[in-house]
């Protein structure tokens, strides 16, 4: 039972940690891109393209954490059910 509880706590913490890290890094990318656009408005097309791709690459890491969360979340109920039977 304690294993299920630890799993629940860790799984619940994983996504917020990933989201905080992803948000901080996305903020840095966005700030740098805005500075670049303000300095060189004529290059805004290229910068936006790079910005979107970089944001996608960062965001996918958070999505991996979310997927892990969804996969492990299903196991918690099964674990508790198994322990309850015993």
């Amino acid at each position, binding site marked *: 039972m304690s294993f299920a509880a630890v799993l629940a706590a860790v799984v619940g913490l994983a996504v917020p940690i990933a989201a905080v890290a992803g948000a901080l890094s996305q903020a840095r990318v966005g700030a740098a891109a805005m500075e670049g656009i303000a300095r060189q408005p004529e290059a805004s*097309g290229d910068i936006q393209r790079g910005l*979107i791709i970089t944001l996608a690459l960062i965001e*996918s890491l958070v*999505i*991996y954490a979310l*997927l892990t969360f*969804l996969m492990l979340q299903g196991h918690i109920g099964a674990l508790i059910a198994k322990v309850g039977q015993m």
Partner: protein
Amino acid sequence: MHEEAGSWLNIIVQHLPAWAEPYVNLGVITSWVVLGLLAMLAWRSTRRLRLVPQSGWQTIAESVYEFLADLCVGLIGPGGERFAPLIGSLFIYILIMNVTGLVPGFISPTASLNMTLALAIISLVAVQYYGFRECGWRYVLHFVGEPWWLFPLMIPIHVIGEIARLLSLSIRLFGNIFGKEMVIGQILILLGSVWAMTHLSAALRAPIIVAGIAVGHLPLLLLGLLVSLIQALIFAMLVGVYIQGAVETQH
């Protein structure tokens, strides 16, 4: 999740012949419906082509094509519009498949890893094909790397890199769309239970609950529309970047 999802197309799923059942599910049938819709739109907009467009359909189709061709030229460089058919069809197909999840009674086929993995395999095989077609054996040689005697190290690294691209392309799209569908579903359930807790007279209860749910999840639908558009654009742009990397390996 999709097997028990409520959809208009469940009627077709329930009447499938036994041999088709392992291969066809709700997502596949929804993607066929999307394909049919897109084919109909394409046929309708190219039926009577004129040099100066006279129908609104042709004007819309031309502006869509110009947007996609500009995207490809921006990503791949001059001559990039050759790849507009592949990248553009990927973009439109994925966009419509993402958006179907927001239509009541339909699901997003891209919320299943089968569909996104298939799309990623198609696009990455196309990347290898274009790389080989444009650069010939030099493309194969770039897997060996710069000091050629490091090839026992570099070839596995490059091959693993290609597989990682495959996984990241498919899992990104799948995770985003699956997350979008899950968030909308959870918010619907949450709104329903919150509104059901209010003390209302029996006559007004059901309509107020339904209206509360419908208005309350509207922002989530707008967010879902944004996510759908961005993920389709990102998939298409990343395929464009990979093609650009494969086509210009001569360095």
